[in-house]
């Protein structure tokens, strides 16, 4: 049998189970936090307070939203395709969670005498795994829009497909530079390659790649200014128009989970993961460092949303194909030459 990927370090099955639950629990708890942070920060950017009525400082607002969504009627339009309609949010949720497994919060650490890697899984194909699930995430959007049997949803899903494909290429190419510099696809090794006093975080030597990855990340997560698949003003939320209640909640949570995942991946690949410059903190600080960097990037996502208007569709396409793709290619070529020459 052909082995497509190897896994660097195996633990006992019960440790893997515990790790899966722990990582999912921790990162999934960030979703309501990001939800609230987004609404409050957007308010601040617009001279408003944002939600401040439910609970202290509006802290229970996401809970109220979730409660409202879950108790709504689970409506399905007559023209929709039932099983696809039900499957789409599940796919979105699944791919978002699956990518989480890749984010390394620290290297292997010694917990009560057991060697545990503080990451879900560390396959040798590393970042390709993330792109594989990113590719699967299309289906959530595509099936969701297509199965709804509505024009707006269909338009939204078509846009989503075109946009995600165009930007995924640029995103992948932007990473080639990082992979070449680190000499590995494994995320833990990429982080290791950024540690130490002689190694810079890749956001500096790979600045162009960093920007491309980040902007393509905005497009991949359908965030403003690349929220054309949703486009509330023209497409009334695009592929999620016909979804309500729990299914909408799943799409919504998946979107925010994707933001967190993209931020965490950017942290890992370009911002040195759990490394802190000039100091060498104890191991237990590592996951906190990763989370802080991730949340800083989430803040950037929100800041950009408050700043930039949505692109026109043709501008989006020409930006992706005529600017980002050549730029990412040139970046990869130049990095390749420099890596060989050095």
């Amino acid at each position, binding site marked *: 049998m052909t082995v497509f990927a190897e896994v660097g370090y195996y633990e006992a099955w019960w440790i893997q189970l515990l790790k899966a639950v722990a990582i999912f629990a921790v990162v999934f708890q960030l979703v309501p936090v990001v939800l609230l942070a987004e609404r409050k920060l957007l308010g601040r950017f617009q001279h408003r307070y944002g939600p401040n009525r439910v609970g202290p400082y509006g802290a229970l607002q996401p809970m109220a939203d979730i409660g409202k969504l879950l108790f709504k009627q689970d409506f399905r339009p007559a023209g929709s395709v039932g099983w696809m309609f039900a499957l789409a949010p599940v796919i979105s949720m699944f791919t978002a969670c699956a990518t989480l497994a890749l984010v390394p919060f620290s290297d292997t650490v010694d917990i009560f005498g057991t060697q545990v890697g503080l990451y879900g899984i560390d396959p040798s194909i590393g970042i390709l795994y993330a792109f594989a699930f990113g590719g699967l995430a299309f289906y959530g959007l595509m099936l969701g829009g297509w199965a709804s049997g509505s024009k707006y949803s269909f338009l939204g899903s078509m846009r989503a497909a075109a946009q995600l494909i165009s930007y995924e290429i640029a995103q992948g190419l932007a990473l080639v530079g990082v992979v070449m510099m680190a000499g590995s696809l494994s995320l833990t090794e990429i982080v290791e390659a950024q540690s130490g006093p002689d190694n810079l975080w890749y956001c500096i030597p790979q600045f162009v790649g960093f920007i491309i990855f980040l902007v393509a990340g905005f497009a991949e997560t359908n965030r403003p200014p690349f929220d054309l698949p949703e486009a509330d003003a023209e497409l009334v939320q695009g592929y999620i128009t016909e979804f309500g209640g729990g299914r909408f909640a799943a799409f919504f949570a998946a979107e925010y989970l994707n933001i967190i995942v993209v931020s965490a991946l950017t942290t890992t690949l370009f911002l040195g993961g759990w490394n802190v410059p000039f100091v060498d903190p104890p191991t237990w600080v590592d996951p906190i460092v990763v989370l802080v960097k991730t949340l800083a990037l989430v803040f950037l996502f929100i800041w950009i949303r408050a*700043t930039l208007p949505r692109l026109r569709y043709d501008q989006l396409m020409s930006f992706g194909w005529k600017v980002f793709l050549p730029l990412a290619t040139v970046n990869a070529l130049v990095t390749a030459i420099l890596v060989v020459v050095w």
Partner: protein
Amino acid sequence: MPYDPGPDVVEVVRAPKGGALRGTYRAFGETLRGMKTTAARWAEGTHTYQYPEEKTPVYPRFRGRHKLHRFEDTGLEKCVGCSLCAAACPADCIRVVADENTPENRVSAGERYAAVYEINLSRCIFCGYCEVACPFDAITMGHDYELSDYNRSDLIFTKEMLLAEPLERTPLRAAGE
């Protein structure tokens, strides 16, 4: 001779100038500038009134819910039931039924008084024509703008309600505010 629009015509820039690289560089710079702008808005702080607790102050001439007035010294109603306000009302929301004052039952300072004075506030457009039409300044527009109720009949304000000292629920805007 072809029409010469003169120097008023400005050429419309239909596409970003420069090549793709320059455009990208400029887009990057402009994005940073935009982010600086939004961050500055954040630093300014909020301009929100926390509404139910903190009311939006109104200008002195704000036209809110009507008030009927009495003479301060005698306590008699100013309204003499002349129905000029009802005649002036474009929304036809005022109903006045006049009655004669008698020595035993003296309600207003004039010959007659308004036995019934009703304003249907669900119809009122707050134009203030009643206030202008009134020869005795008996009706004026107040400052109260919190006029919601659970059914329409509750929005028909009677004379007693309009005469009653209104709950001063609305703050006035200070000079220069």
